[in-house]
């Protein structure tokens, strides 16, 4: 099936490996990704902190562009983009005065939006079956880290999983043959929205998360969120420097591990883009 794909600024930059791995697995899972034409930044997290109209209008323009391609589903893999896009569609359909403002601003009329906005877990979870598995990820022990943006608050964003104890990534990892360790920090916030403006706060919570992952006995942290990944992986060296710790924990997108389990060659999954290289670990387990 054709799925409208909104990479957003992060998947075309700092989260390149998520883009690479999504493109690698979507074909074998029967999906054809069609990039939203001429998309713009959704404005997260600055627009919703500074201007109500722009926080709606920027993602609304992307929704209008996505509707033009004629797909039933739209996925915005970055959770910050997903949340803004999901909310904007809700406002677009349910708050006539906001839509009116948008129509005034662009000088055009728009029909209600019917495309189904899905997050990165939602879009893959039903399409993955044991039949897609070429080799299991046996021996790999992970903790699944969902972060906050994907799951909270449940009433607003309509996510299908439990906001305090989500299971969808655990389910995907089980299908892939990896062992998921239960741990208490599944949905703790990593402080990504403060990572440029209050680094003391961000580094503290990142240290706590990395410490808990290590104490839980995980060999790697599995993530779905671009912001969490950037914070825990890219900034792991900064956390080590500040707290004189020696963390060396790979922080891997679930799509990369799915790809590996589906038999896609490791060099097509963007493992080299990660700061903490997971390949020595994967090699030691004979997974690559």
């Amino acid at each position, binding site marked *: 099936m054709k799925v409208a794909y909104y990479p957003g600024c992060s998947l075309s930059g*700092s989260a390149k490996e998520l883009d690479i791995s999504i493109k690698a697995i979507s074909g074998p899972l029967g999906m054809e990704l069609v990039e939203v034409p001429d998309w713009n930044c959704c404005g997260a997290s600055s627009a919703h902190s500074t201007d109500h109209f722009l926080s709606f209008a920027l993602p609304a323009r992307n929704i209008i562009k996505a509707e033009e391609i004629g797909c039933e589903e739209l996925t915005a893999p970055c959770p910050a983009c997903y949340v803004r896009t999901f909310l904007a569609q809700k406002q677009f359909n349910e708050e006539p005065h906001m839509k009116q403002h948008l129509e005034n601003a662009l000088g055009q009329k728009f029909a209600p939006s019917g495309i189904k906005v899905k997050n990165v877990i939602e879009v893959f979870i039903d399409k993955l079956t044991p039949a897609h598995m070429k080799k299991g990820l046996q021996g790999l022990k992970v903790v699944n880290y969902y972060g906050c943006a994907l799951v909270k608050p449940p009433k607003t964003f309509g996510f299908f999983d439990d906001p305090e104890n989500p299971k969808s990534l655990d389910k995907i990892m089980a299908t892939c043959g990896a062992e998921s360790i239960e741990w208490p920090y599944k949905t703790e*916030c990593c402080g990504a929205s403060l990572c440029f403006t209050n680094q003391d706060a961000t580094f503290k919570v990142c240290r706590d998360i990395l410490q808990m992952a290590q104490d839980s006995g995980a060999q790697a942290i599995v993530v779905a969120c671009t912001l969490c990944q950037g914070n825990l992986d890219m900034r792991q060296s900064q956390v080590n420097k500040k707290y004189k710790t020696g963390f060396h924990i790979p922080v891997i997108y679930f799509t990369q591990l799915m790809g590996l389990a589906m038999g896609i060659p490791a060099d097509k999954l963007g493992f080299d883009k990660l700061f903490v290289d997971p390949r020595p670990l994967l090699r030691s387990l004979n997974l690559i």
Partner: protein
Amino acid sequence: MKEINLTQMLNKNKDFLDKLKEESGQNPGQCFQCMKCTGGCPFQFIMDFPPSQIMRMLQDGLVDEVLSSFTIWTCAACATCSTRCPRDLDITRLMDTLRVIAYRKGISGKGKNMHVFYTTFMNSVKNNGRLYEIGLALGLNFGTRNLTQDTDIGLPMFMKGKISVFPHKIKGIDEIRKLYDYAGKIGE
């Protein structure tokens, strides 16, 4: 200790509180101080007032104190509070709205870094339609006079192809400008 006349304060700030309710769709008056929000807030340790206290301050009309607090800027918008509130208050949405109002009024208080970040970010999107990371990093580091922040991860990011040297301007940049112009006109 400063003396505050709460009745006067509430009367004086009634209009503001009504506007806050309208813009956020939330009524801080609903809060009964169970403190679940504060208990679960991952950034409470760095705030000057915990979220439950901000709710109480709003109930008492202490608007200036709330708008100049560090709390509204260092709220990470993780929505743990909104998820757990037994009164169904979307506290995150309230914090967002307080930030928008403070930003609109030009009050940065203790959130100067955030103010610079948001402004630089929004200008970058206005100019290109997409975020230009190098421009954002430079604007932020100059604006906050913290020139060396994140320079250690900048080069590895570049080597891994995670940041581009030049901005990407979208074709529909005129539409983005129209949205910004309109936002300026309606002031919401």
